[in-house]
């Protein structure tokens, strides 16, 4: 039996399978490892960031700073490696430390100053974007033998598709993310805070350190997403990835995570990313549609999912009320 809390995830998976089947019926070529490989690579940075967003939304919060942090990271890396000649590994380590600290700082402000996540991360969004402009307003190209090596590394699927390093990185992040959410105390605490912060506190959950940890994780993964984006485009540009946080939120919600927190799966977000990628791929195959159709379809899907989630809550409440009624009827 499917537990009702997994119903949104199962629905998303169903929609993805059906949509993919429909695409394949129209364009049989879409059922190739090449398409799948490209889909994973093209959405790697978004997927990595969306894992962090999943934790944030599961805890009942929101992180609007993701797109700006990605832009900052990519410009910072590009300037360090491309202009200053720093070794990429040092640059990567530096941006991950910076973005994690940035996330923890926002988490601490949310928890200890009691400022809503929306406001804190909105400020973080402007701050990170501004810092990115400060470093460079130009698109900064990047080239280093190590970066070339990473970009050139892939496994070949039968059928000609490539599983690139970026795709592998994203899959690893999703896998680890799913384990952290489902099988660690930190993950359990995230769900608990998302259910009710007050109850979680009364049950002895360390709400403070968990909240800071959640936003630190989101910051870290944004930094990692920024590195992935830099590798993907071979450059850093401070105007890039505007609004990526909203794509990440869309992937999380389409993946079945409740925006109010407490219910959802990291695996759902993965399917959410796949659906977004599928729509983009379809538009490329079709060739006549404007790329803005991606946004329209995602908008429609979001509406459908929000309505679906309300429906599930309504349905389970009614079922509970009915079972109580029949139970009391039997007694009397």
């Amino acid at each position, binding site marked *: 039996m499917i537990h009702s809390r997994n119903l949104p995830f199962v629905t998303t998976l169903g929609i993805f399978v059906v949509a993919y089947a429909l695409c394949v019926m129209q364009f049989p070529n879409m059922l190739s490892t090449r398409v799948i490989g490209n889909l994973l690579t093209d959405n790697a940075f978004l997927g990595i960031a969306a894992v962090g967003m999943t934790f944030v939304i599961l805890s009942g919060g929101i992180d609007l700073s993701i797109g700006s942090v990605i832009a900052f990271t990519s410009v910072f890396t590009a300037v360090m490696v491309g202009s200053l000649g720093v070794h990429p590994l040092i640059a990567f380590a530096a941006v991950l430390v910076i973005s994690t600290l940035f996330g923890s700082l926002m988490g601490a402000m949310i928890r200890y100053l009691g400022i809503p996540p929306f406001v804190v991360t909105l400020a973080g969004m402007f701050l990170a974007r501004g810092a990115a402009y400060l470093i460079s307003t130009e698109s900064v190209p990047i080239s280093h033998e190590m970066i070339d090596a990473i970009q050139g590394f892939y496994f070949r699927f039968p059928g000609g598709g490539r599983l690139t390093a970026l795709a592998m990185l994203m899959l690893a992040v999703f896998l680890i993310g799913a384990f952290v959410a*489902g099988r660690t105390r930190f993950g359990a605490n995230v769900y*608990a805070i*998302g259910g009710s912060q007050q*109850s979680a506190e009364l049950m*002895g*959950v360390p709400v403070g350190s968990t909240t800071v940890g959640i936003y630190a994780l989101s910051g870290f993964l944004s930094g990692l997403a920024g590195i992935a984006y830099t590798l993907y485009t071979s450059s850093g540009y401070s105007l890039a990835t505007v609004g990526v946080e909203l794509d990440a939120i869309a992937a999380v919600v389409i993946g079945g995570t409740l925006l109010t927190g407490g219910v959802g799966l990291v695996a759902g977000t993965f399917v959410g990313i796949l659906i977004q990628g599928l729509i983009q791929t379809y538009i490329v195959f079709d060739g006549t549609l404007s790329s803005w159709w991606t946004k329209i379809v995602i908008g429609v899907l979001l509406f459908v999912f929000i309505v679906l989630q309300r429906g599930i809550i309504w349905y389970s409440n009614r079922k509970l009320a009915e079972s109580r009624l029949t139970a009391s009827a039997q007694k009397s």
Partner: protein
Amino acid sequence: MSDKNSLLEARGIGKSFLGITALDGVDFTLERGEIHALLGENGAGKSTLIKILTGVYSRDHGNMWLDGAEVTPANVAEAQALGIGTVYQEVNLLENLTVAENLFLGRQPRRFGLIDRREMRRRSQALLSRYGLDIDVDALLSSYSVAVRQIVAIARAVDLSGKVLVLDEPTASLDAHEVEMLFSVLSKLREDGLGIIIITHFLNQVYAVADRVTVLRNGRLVGTKKLAELPRLELISMMLGRELQHITREHQAQEETVASTAEAPIRFSGYGKRGSVAPFDLHIRPGEVVGVAGLLGSGRTETAFLLFGIDRADSGTATVDDRNITLSSPEAAITNGFGFCPEERKTDGIIGDFSVADNIALALQARQGWSKPISSREKAALAESFIKSLDIRPADAERPIKFLSGGNQQKAILARWLATNPRLLILDEPTRGIDIGAHAEILKMIERLCAEGMSLVVISSELEELTAVAHRVIVLSDRRHVAELSGDRLTADNIMQAIASSARMEAAE
């Protein structure tokens, strides 16, 4: 100082919030293997005491001992670790998690650093089977009834702490069968030697399950008694703070005439709402003060909510001047000339950041409609006149009302309704939490208003206050109007008798 036999002992506990004393030198002792009921009306200090015992608040005065050793839990986690577990009425568990996840949140069994779900499931089933509960522990908590959730919460608290179990209103939303189930669990825990503190306002349940009772009133200890030796009437008088003695009223004669001569223009017939208050009849005459008495949870506030249209009645009719009216919202009630001062002044009554003048003008503005704004000059004049006539201090109409004392806030709310010149004013606990001087002034004002021909409904847990100001008193028990007392029969004794006898009737059924 501490008694070696007792499990949990507290002496001289005191606590005040912003200068208002919530608890004053309260002693409390919990033995091993006893169920101890903690009773008192709203604001008696029950929840403050519980929160001090369970580490939510820090105490200002006094000491507490657990197992003979002095303890000062700084937070809930510390109290839990010491052995004091709490089950709150509403906010206790997480509905979005499974039963097993709730039981083991924060202490999940782990293998290689990862949560061992199989072990967690096994231990959860073993734990719950001791409470006679055989359920799917991997199902969401929200898929189970409130009773099952309560038992899961108790199982968690006992497993976590294991010495003292505190239950805050555990039966508030349970039906009779579920209450039985809960009580058999509690009796078993008592046999295991646990000390259980239970807060409830259902007297029958207190007598059914508890061994001893401690009654608090206005932040002070009234007494601790063995229930087997305590008649119901005496317990009620402890709670309502009245010695059993007959007092006679002076101003009887004149009210008799009011009651007999005037026709009642405001009538409620068969008025009620399922699950809230059983249908009742209430006729209110001009210049009459109708008191509403009853214990906490008896349906006092619910009655007021029905009269003022906050809750919609599902039976009966309301008429004003022989005209049928529908009280579908407070707005409709205001249109019919009703006014209501709620019990929770801070949350339901005042708008803290608004000035005194704005707060006073609020109801009048609502009655006029938003299209006809009251000019600031009118508002100032209005505020000025009421500040003078009600002696609101400080006499500054522009000061935000949150900076005024409780008594002056209450006067401002009264002024708000008086400005609309209502024909019926409902006051829910008008004198709670205000100082003695303001207390007397408000009672005086009630008398003056009814002398001017206004009708008042006054809800209060202070029986002396009711017998002093009301012409008639309606007694509520278990969400029903059980008696109406007037004239010579209107005494605090008779009110308590009415509550006690109806409670006994319930028990006999």
